[in-house]
């Protein structure tokens, strides 16, 4: 399967938006994994990222603001043959959906969560987001944001996530490799994508991200298996680490909970009177 198999429509995001980098990386990851489009479900939240389903050819679910993760969890647990991605924004995943985010990390269902982080609310026209830096001036914080920004990957690690990565839309090749690894990881995987908003965030633009990211990978002798190293790298606020930041092999929720390998959603349903009668005897 080639890239055009996953390309449904040409996107109409703002020209220069970082999310084009994610779109390209996603298609490349699908090509490298050779997953048939009907085996992919992309669940999106509300925000500019939510248009992804209109451009990427796969099953798509564009639900409610902040709720992509529980929907994705329900889909994956119902059909374990599917590759399920929850694509979200910084407002969607880290603000309104933060409760689900933390619990998805600790639940460790075999889904991939991609958070497109542009440090601003784009679709609603430029309000401050939970990842906007302190002092950030916007229509919703005209005197500068008074709150500390939230670090998704850091929160994910301490919440029990087993695969935590951060990529940059300006390096789609690197991002493709992270997404590919995230999809093949057994358990919950988070890939945060730093993605400049050309329309609303004039501070954290492509140039700014390029100057501030630092690659954490084999070339820097970074060990993603070491939790302490990962936490230290993320807590050092002088730079923004990108790469596969933390990985841990452990059984997923699916491994521990699903009664069999047969996808629940594809079962023929019948009324097994004999088995049900046996259960009913408990009440006699």
């Amino acid at each position, binding site marked *: 399967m080639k890239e055009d198999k996953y390309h449904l429509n040409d996107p109409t995001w703002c020209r220069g938006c970082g999310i084009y980098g994610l779109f390209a990386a996603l298609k490349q990851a699908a090509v490298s994994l050779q997953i048939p489009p009907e*085996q992919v479900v992309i669940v999106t939240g509300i925000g500019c990222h939510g248009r992804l389903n209109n451009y990427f050819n796969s099953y798509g*679910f564009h639900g409610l603001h902040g*709720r992509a993760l529980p*929907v994705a969890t329900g*889909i994956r*647990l119902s059909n374990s043959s599917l590759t399920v991605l929850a694509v979200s924004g910084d407002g969607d995943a880290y603000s309104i959906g933060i409760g689900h985010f933390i619990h998805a990390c600790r639940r460790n269902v075999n889904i991939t969560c991609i958070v497109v982080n542009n440090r601003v609310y784009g679709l609603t026209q430029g309000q401050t987001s939970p990842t906007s830096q302190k002092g950030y001036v916007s229509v919703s914080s005209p005197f500068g944001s008074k709150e500390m920004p939230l670090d998704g990957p850091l929160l994910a690690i301490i919440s029990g996530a087993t695969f935590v990565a951060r990529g940059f839309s300006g390096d789609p090749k690197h991002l493709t490799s992270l997404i590919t690894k995230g999809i093949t990881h057994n358990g919950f995987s988070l890939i945060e994508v730093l993605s400049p908003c050309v329309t609303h965030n004039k501070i954290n633009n492509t140039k700014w991200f390029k100057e501030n990211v630092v690659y954490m990978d084999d070339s820097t002798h970074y060990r993603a298996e070491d939790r302490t190293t990962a936490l230290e790298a993320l807590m050092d606020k002088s730079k923004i680490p990108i790469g596969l930041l933390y990985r841990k092999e452990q059984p997923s929720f699916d491994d521990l909970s699903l009664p069999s390998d047969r996808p629940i959603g594809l079962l023929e*349903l019948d*009324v097994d009177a004999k088995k049900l009668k046996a259960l*009913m005897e408990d009440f006699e």
Partner: protein
Amino acid sequence: MIDDIQIMIAGHAGDGVLFTGNVLGKILKRQGWEVVTYRDFPSNIRGEATNYTIRASLSKIYNRGDAIDVLMAFDCDSILRHISAIAEDGIVLCEGGVTESIRLSQKKGRTFHKFPMREMAKKNLGSEIFKNTILLGGLCYILDLDLKIIDEVLTEVFLSKKGEEVVQKNIQAVIFGCDEAEKIVKKEEKHTLVKRPDIDRLFIAGDEAVALGSLAAGCRFFAAYPICPATEIWQWLIKHIHTFNGLVVQTEDEIAAINMALGAAYAGVRSMTATSGPGASLMMEAFSLAGMAEIPLVIAHVQRVGPSTGLPTRPEQSDLNQWVFGAHGDFPRIVLSPGTIEECFYFMADAFNLAEKYQCPVILLTEQNYGQNFYTVETFDFSHVVIDRGMLLSQADLLKMEDYKRYKFTENGISPRAVPSMKNGIHMVEGNEHDQKGYRDEDEETRIKMMDKRMKKLKSAINDVIPPVFWGKKEACVGIIGFGSTVWPIREAMDQLEDKGVPCKYLQIRTLWPFSASEVKEFMESCDEVFVVENNYSGQLHGLIQGQGIECSHVRKITKYSGHTFRPIEITESILEALKQ
């Protein structure tokens, strides 16, 4: 001969009242009686006053009765709290001595005895823990319970969890309690119950019936957050669903629960969630999404007292409006209201079938007094459970289709449904307004056609939902309308009214939405007087009837919102009083 009896066990939370009541209920069921339990519990673990009423009858019953015939009390306060309800020939056994105010009440023909269960347990069996089985022993004497049955039930309760020794010790306590009661209770004070065969019957709570019903109906995914009084549904299911290759997930909140259940339903599983009022409020946004995206989702809602946290462990019928009118936007929904425990079971198959046939959310609206209380019912007949998956496509069907459209415009508004992983079925599920393939579309014409498509599904559903039931004599001029569990106190009140020369008829609504307007209109037109009886403040069913444009000038409301169900006599008296005016 006694054909109907009500026993109350009263004390404080932590006294073991619930345990004793459940065991007694099961014993009476095995002795061949129809049993209904009624738990009156505060929302805490220890300390506050609680009581448990067990009504047993030789005929079918579904609600607590009016008077208490036997009261077993762990303290004098418990007697004083219920003294007005004690029958004139009632008997009371109490842990403590008889106080002055109780002595005064005794004059009415009631008898009171000191029965120091705690003290006897400590002194004669070595631990206070046996106070509850000593209490059972007391009842064994008063009611002439079969010791063999008590032995059998206690063995079932204790053997696997606590072992043979505990079983024997408890049976010893029962015999001890029985002997002690014989010393103090006179023969003429006894309330001897006959013994009948117990064949093909269950002793089951409404939540358990819903759980078993959902499993029989093919529910294979369940996501929920703990809440009184709905949690028992999935606590039962979680023990068994894996043997049907299904899964229950406890979520972080109700928002996650409904969204997860929606994801599962979209992926092709018969999926549900369960909750009560506060959880339902959190679910409203996703409820609207289920309507928009045409996802077959089932929600079991066990009503408790609102608003806000209200009275979490007590019954009310005040969430009708929440599901009939709740959530933003116009979208189709179906709301079912079972009136018996049997219907809690059988309606689950209807709920799933309707959800899949009409591709919309379906709510099974029950009540705390059904959910958490036990009832004797006939064993369920699984041959009555039929699974109809509506327009769900198979892979073979789908491969034959050209240019598949998930939201295809059809005559009745229902479109064939593909699920993820199916070839040739790729589509989009959108919370935004969308075109026939599911992709976002803000075109005016598409918007109108899509709204019409979704809403017209209910036009065919109205002939397919569960019709109301008529009770009583056609020629009666006084009509009663109600829904849910009020059916039983209403029917008992009808007997009382008949005795007083006021024959009534009654229409029990079983589908609250789409509303059975033509049946209700016809019924109301045949009455001179109509009473809408419901367990809420504002008369939500009354409002629903009014909203249908049905002539309501001869209609009066009888409501109760005290945190308790109606006693039959309350309905009888309200109607008699109203008719006088």
